């Protein structure tokens, strides 16, 4: 491979990365707008409607305001880690998008076989998403510790406990999906659900779908699991001391993680880019995937508008005493059903590897 080829390859990769990160950043901005409007609608008020037509320029005005604010470092903060923490929070949320397949395309008939629309088509895509997702703790933990503030530290410790607990049940819910799909490649998982909504994994794995999505809420520290922020008890939790653009980076990370969880839920349980009925296949797959993702983002917002915050012991009870046994039982049920003569034909309907 000559140097020129390598340069071209690197250029293509850079373009691919930009083609994913820029839409993610833009959609983060407009999800904040959507959230304010939807919550306003649910609480019978207007929401932001002053800047631009129907308030559509509000996210840009917010971004500009945050950009122009002064960034303050507390006197006794650990400077290096204080500055590194927002970056470490944002990085995993964006890096995980590298393996997400946004659909299949043959580039208008130029390629002979359909290719996956993902930066990297990894054999272990789902493990990669889990591994990278587990790194999101560091940003929060370091932010809390480096600020040298009691509220921030309490927020960070709460958040870590919560994320570590819910990651376990999330992982087991993913194991159930793997037992049906027989592959860790995200493209294969989606293609295992091809052919209409009765092939989707939400049907045999409905409890796991609930566990995954609710744990996803807890992982992203969204309401009703927003104890790390808990503004009524610990002001703003781990990012009390942050201001300006660094503060904005944390919310950017939170919303990017929210998009990621929604995308993963649609990919693993809702058939990814496949239409619910094969007759609707004329609509491009990417639109289906993004539509399903938007629905889950709406669910996140709906949760925030309706549920009161959990108490901390209730949160731990839900994670360890309800979700974990539930997932373990479901793994056993799936395993037994796969190798029991009568049941295996039923469960085999969702297992393309058999």
């Amino acid at each position: 491979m000559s140097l020129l080829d390598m340069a071209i390859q690197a250029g293509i990769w850079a373009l691919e990365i930009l083609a994913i990160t820029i839409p993610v950043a833009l959609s983060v901005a407009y999800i904040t707008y959507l959230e304010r409007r939807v919550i306003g609608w649910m609480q019978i008020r207007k929401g932001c409607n002053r800047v631009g037509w129907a308030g559509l320029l509000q996210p840009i005005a917010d971004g500009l305001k945050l950009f122009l604010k002064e960034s303050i470092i507390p006197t006794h903060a650990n400077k290096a880690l204080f500055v590194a923490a927002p970056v470490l929070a944002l990085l995993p949320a964006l890096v995980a998008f590298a393996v997400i397949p946004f659909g299949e395309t043959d580039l208008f008939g130029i390629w002979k076989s359909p290719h996956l629309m993902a930066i990297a088509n990894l054999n272990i895509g789902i493990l990669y998403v889990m591994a990278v997702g587990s790194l999101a703790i560091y940003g929060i933990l370091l932010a809390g510790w480096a600020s040298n503030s009691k509220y921030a530290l309490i927020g960070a410790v709460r958040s870590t406990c919560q994320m570590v607990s819910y990651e376990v049940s999330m992982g087991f819910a993913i194991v159930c999906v793997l037992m049906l799909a027989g592959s860790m490649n995200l493209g294969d998982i989606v293609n295992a659900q091809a052919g209409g909504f009765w092939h989707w994994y939400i049907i045999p794995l409905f409890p796991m779908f609930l566990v995954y999505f609710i744990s996803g809420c807890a992982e992203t520290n969204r309401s009703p699991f927003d104890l790390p922020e808990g503004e009524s008890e610990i002001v703003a939790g781990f990012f009390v001391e942050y201001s300006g653009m660094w503060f904005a980076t944390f919310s950017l990370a939170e919303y990017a993680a929210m998009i990621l969880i929604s995308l993963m839920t649609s990919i693993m349980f809702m058939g990814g880019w496949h239409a619910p009925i094969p007759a609707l296949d004329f609509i491009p797959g990417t639109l289906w995937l993004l539509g399903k993702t938007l629905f889950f983002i709406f669910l996140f917002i709906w949760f925030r508008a309706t549920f009161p915050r959990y108490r901390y012991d209730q949160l731990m009870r839900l994670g360890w005493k309800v979700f974990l046994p539930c997932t373990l039982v479901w793994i056993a049920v799936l395993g037994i059903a796969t190798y029991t003569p009568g049941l295996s034909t039923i469960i085999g309907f969702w297992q393309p590897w058999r």
Partner: protein
Amino acid sequence: MLESIFFYLFGGLATIGALLVVLSRNPMHSVMWLIFCFFNAAGLFFLLDAEFIGIITILIYVGAVMVLFIFVIIMLEVNVARMREGFLHHLPLGGMIAMLVFIEMASAGFSGVFSAEQMGTAVHLGQEVNNTAEIGKELYTHYLLGFELAAIILLAALVGSVVLTIRSRKDAKYQNIPAQIAVKKSDRLRKVRM
């Protein structure tokens, strides 16, 4: 060519990270350097096409074990001045151990076992060979007994840690959630005729 460049990059960064773990004053910085070191170790696994082990390294060590490390360090108050007390007193013993380890490693390195002729170079297989599936087949056939033994040891450790830390206080007020859910309107509400 590119592979060896990346090998030296990951290897070198891992060594630098490991050195900084020992040399940094602040234990929190040490933990961060250790995480950095694990990432480079995972990179070395990726170079060997062992993507499953590489990802598991990140998932287990960086995602879980190091978080617990940080958790412990946050709770500790580390006094650097007290840690450095008696440095000269312990130097002879520590220095001797360090020298021994260094001689061992150097003699192993120059013994010829790790020379370029002796080491087999890893052959890169195509993407159709699934690392994870191969590990699974090997683990559940050849090494089934060892695997199950490890599982039992882990289970024993799990039960042991629960037994060691469980404290049941009779005077503490716990919430009995099934009882709360089972409460009926008639249990709490009484109609009074006025």
